[in-house]
Structure formats: C-alpha cells, structure tokens
C-alpha cells in the first residue's frame, strides 16, 4: 500500500510551534513516516533540539516511523560532528549529502532529495551501499521518475506537496535581505515561517528564500499524478510541511491515494487550505518547474 510521509520541516519555526505541529501529526494525521531534523542551517537545530525526544516518543507511540534527516550542505567541523552524531543513532537516517552516505555505508538508510539520483546506475550504487528508500530529486520528469521507480529494488519516494527546494548555498539570503551577517544573524529567518517572498520587479511572485535555501514560490501539488506514480511503482509520497493545516492536507492525499476521492475534488478541497499560493507541477510534466498544467 502507498505510504504517506511528512518530510523535514525546512523553515525556521518557533520551537513550540514546531513541537505542536508534530504532536498534531502524531495524534491525528494518516501519515506513515515522519522526517525530523535540520536540513537547511546547522545553527537552527540547537534551538529546538531539546524538544526532539518528546516529539519522537509521541510519533513512535502513534505507530509512525521516525526518520532523522541530515544537513544538505556540510562544510564546517561543527557540521561534520553533527552528522557523525546523527548517523551514529540507532534510528534510521536520511542522508542529504555524500558525507552522510559514507558514514551510513553498510547500514540501512534513506537517501534524501538532495542526493543527485538521476539514473539507474547511481541508484543501484546507492542500494548496494545500504539505501532502503530513495528520494528522487524534485527536478525529475514523470517519465524519469517512472523509469527509476520501476527499476528500483527498494522503496521510492517523491515530493507531492509543498514548496520545492530549488537550490542550496553557503550564503544566507535571509541574512542578506535583512542586512545582517550570517554569523550574527539573530535568526531573522524566524520572521518568515513561510519563507521570505522574492518577487520579480513586476511584482509577480517567483521564489521563496529560506535561509541558505531557495524554494519555489508555488506549492508542488501532484494530486493528479498520484495514480500514475503509484502504477509506476513509487511507494512513498512526501508532504513537505508548510504553513497550512498539514493534518487536513494529509487526509486529502490519503483519500486520493486510496481511491476514495478523485484528484480534482481533492484539489478543490486543498485550495481551501492553502490561501493564495499558486500550485506548480511543471517538473513532473517534463516542463519548467514553475508551470502548472491542470489538464
């Protein structure tokens, strides 16, 4: 049966807001796996680290698989130490950088969407290293996803809801936009729990800045593609946490995956939860990522 997952929270939310979201997910959401841990900025996790044990306990008690994610970009000793500690945990880990894969070699682990898996040869290599679930990069077309999912001997996961991560940088654009230095940023990213809107000079929205990460302005919404992706062998469908009622978002996706709700109806329900944010599905349709095709 198709599994629904909640990807790592990319944004910097207040620790209590973060905890409360996960408590609700544990208590109410039809989600099978939950990814915890900081992917974007190594300075953030200490702010909410103390809440992680109770979040993990609550999720475990609710019968959900808990996965610990690692950083997408690792340069400093502090970051190397952080991933070494994470990869030493008994829990299953999602590797988002080759450094983490090297630490997890020979043990069951998950590779995240920041690992460039574009073809069967790379996928096969990662499976030989111990990957039991492969997240595919957001840039792939539906055709490429289907080719890889059919080929993949282990589980295949793709992002089906939420802003798409488009790039990683050493530079913090949140700090730059607010005129502070990255090393003394005062966590200005916490000002924007939904990311900082970056628009064209015409005023048309384009991107969202989240610290060192740049994201799509629109939410990827792949409800209409779910059936084809299921048929191609995708096993896990990822919802990326946004400022929206993620429990209700999960319920809609669960219903469509189960065939209890058609995609168009699901989309109409989803629109009530997501405000003005436009939807995108260009990548999966083999087009520019920011495109939306509703046919």
């Amino acid at each position, binding site marked *: 049966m198709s599994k629904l997952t909640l990807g790592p929270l990319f944004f910097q939310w207040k620790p209590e807001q973060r905890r409360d979201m996960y408590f609700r997910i544990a208590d109410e959401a039809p989600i099978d796996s939950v990814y915890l841990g900081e992917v974007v900025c190594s300075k953030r996790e200490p702010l909410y680290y103390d809440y992680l044990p109770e979040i993990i306990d609550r999720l475990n008690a609710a019968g959900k698989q808990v996965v610990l994610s690692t950083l*997408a*970009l*690792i*340069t400093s000793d502090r*970051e*190397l130490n952080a991933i070494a500690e994470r990869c030493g945990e008994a829990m299953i880990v999602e590797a988002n*950088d*080759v*450094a983490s*894969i*090297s*630490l997890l070699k020979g043990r069951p682990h998950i590779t995240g969407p*920041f690992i*460039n898996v*574009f*073809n*069967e*040869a*790379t996928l*096969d*290599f*990662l499976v030989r290293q111990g990957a039991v679930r492969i997240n595919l990069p*957001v*840039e792939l077309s539906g*055709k*490429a996803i289907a*080719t*890889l999912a059919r080929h993949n001997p282990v589980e295949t996961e793709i992002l089906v809801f939420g802003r*798409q991560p*488009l*790039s*990683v*940088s*050493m*530079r913090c*654009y949140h*700090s730059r*936009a607010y005129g502070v*230095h*990255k*090393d003394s940023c005062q966590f200005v990213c916490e000002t924007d729990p939904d990311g*900082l*809107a*970056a*628009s*064209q*000079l*015409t*005023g*048309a929205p*384009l*991107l969202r*800045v989240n610290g060192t990460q*740049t994201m799509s302005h629109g939410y990827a919404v792949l409800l209409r593609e779910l059936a084809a992706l299921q048929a191609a062998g995708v096993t896990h469908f990822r919802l990326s946490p946004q400022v929206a009622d993620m429990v209700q978002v999960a319920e809609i996706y669960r219903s469509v995956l189960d065939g209890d709700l058609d995609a168009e109806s699901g989309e109409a329900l989803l629109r009530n939860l997501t405000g003005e944010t436009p939807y995108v599905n260009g990548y999966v349709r*083999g*087009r*520019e*990522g*920011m*495109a939306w095709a509703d046919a």
Partner: protein
Amino acid sequence: MRDIAYLELVCPAGTPAALRTAIDAGADTVYCGFRDCTNARNYPGLNFDAKELREGVAYAHARGRWVIVAINTFPRAGDIGPWHRAIDTAAECGADAVILADIGLLDYAMRKHPNLRRHLSVQAAASNPLSIDFYRETFGISRVVLPRVLEVDEVATLISRMKVEAEVFAFGSVGTMVEGRCTLSSYITGRSPSSDGVCAPAEFVHYREDGAFMESCLGDVVTNRYAKNENAAYPTPCKCRLVTNDNASYLFEEPVGLNAVSILPQLKAAGVTALKIEGRQRSRAYVGQVVTAFRAVLDALARGETMPQAAADLHAIAEGGRETLSALKKGWK
C-alpha cells in the same frame, strides 16, 4: 612529468581553435567537452567530436600539455549510453583525465578505464573532507574541483585533510548556489545544468522595452530592468534583481565576474594544485587574453617576483568590467 610553474593553469576550450589558442598562450591543461548533453556547457556551436578531440590531444601532447574532458552532467534515466560512449571516446582519444560528477559514471569509469585519471567535477559539490575521501576511496579520484562557495581559509583547512589534488576556480563567471544542486534554471526554463548542461539557455532570453526602461527576461520571468543607456547583464537566475519586503536588490549576487588573481599566493599557500579558468562558452580571443595574462602572472610568481603588470589586464577583462573575489574573501556569507 610536466613542468608546472607555481600553479597548474587549467583553461577552457569551447572549440578546437580555442584549444590551440589556450595551449599557445601557455595553458598547462585544457578542458573541453563533447558536442552533446554530456557536458555542462552544451551550447550551440561549441564543443568537440572524437576526431577534433584526438587532434587536440595530439596538439597538446606535442607541447607537453594535457587535455581533460568534462563529462559532468547527470545521465538521464533510461538513456545512459551517450555518457558511457563519451567516457570511452575520451579514453580512446588519449585524454589525460575525465571530469565526472555522477556516482554511476564514476563507478563505470573506474571499472572500464581504471588507468584514466578521474577528476571530481564541481557539479558533485564535494565540500568537506568526508565526502572527498568517500569519492577517493570508492572511485579512486585523483583531483577534486572545489565548490565555489568556500573561503580561502576553508580551502586551506580542507586541503590539509584530503589526499587528492585540489583545483579551484580563479576567473570567470561564478554563481552563488552550490553547483550541481541548483535548479533555478529549470524552474524557469525547463532546462538545467545538471540534466541538460545549460543554465539560462539563450533561446529563453529576450529583452523588451518598457517605457524608459529595458527589461531582460528569461522565459516568462522578468529578471532585471535597466535604463536604456545601461549595459544589461545576462539574465542568469542567481544574478537577477528581485523584490523582498518592498526592496529591490540583487538578492543572490550582483552580475560580477570572479577574479582571484590578487590572492594567488594565498591559494598556493593553501595547497591548491590547479587554477581553473571558467568559460568554454567564451570566444577564442577572450581565452587567449585571459590565458596570456595568467601565464605571465604565474611565471612571475614562480620567479619570486611580486604581482606583475599582467594582473591589471585581468581586472580589465573581468565580466562586465566588474569583478569580485566572491566566496573566496571573508565576509561574503
């Protein structure tokens, strides 16, 4: 052994003519790619076929220089053939190394052509000693091209902990995103460096007048607005002007070029092996100018002289006349 003065000078060649120009101007190594999606400068009118590569290698080897081949995009699912053929052809043509980013391709090259040197492309984004060690132990890489996101002291620390050669970018265009992990181009145009070997391809670029201003556009996106007498920069997504909190700015980076000539002694002290000049898409004349100037600077530094006059030439050539040390300098983050 080649006779390398100070630092190995690795220069771009988009065409066979540019290859000869770069060699004649004093390149120690020239890098190029095949005329297809297997390399990250897949632009019309550029690149090499097998015959041209073979001739280029002969030209370089006759002068004691190297030719290395960039096969640094990520092969498409279900269609890995062109990438395997590119590696096989590079080996058959006598290339001195291949520059690879994809894990599956590194694996293939190591098994099929164990004696062909493997350089890890900047597109692999190996930014820490653990990752670099993984690529060395697993795929026997000899060199890593370091991501353009590191400061000089970070480069030095990294090199002290790794067991392969380090190549760093010294001149040319520079993005602010980690290479191989940026999809801004495909988000706007459908085509990306990782998959297609192109960033902001020219067929999506257009300019339009809007009253007293000219707008540069990439696909349907307005990337910048200029006064009519102002020079318009190429609309690369990471160098566009965006509005955040009602403030228009170059949010990611200004449209400037990288020029590290002033810190070559620091790069040498950091343990860097090779300097890379970006720009396979540039003209033969540009390549000739930049390589000539770098050759003069490196030879002077090798003789123990202070920074020679030729360095000034590089300041004049830098992209749009505006240059930066980019991430290499402190405080950039």
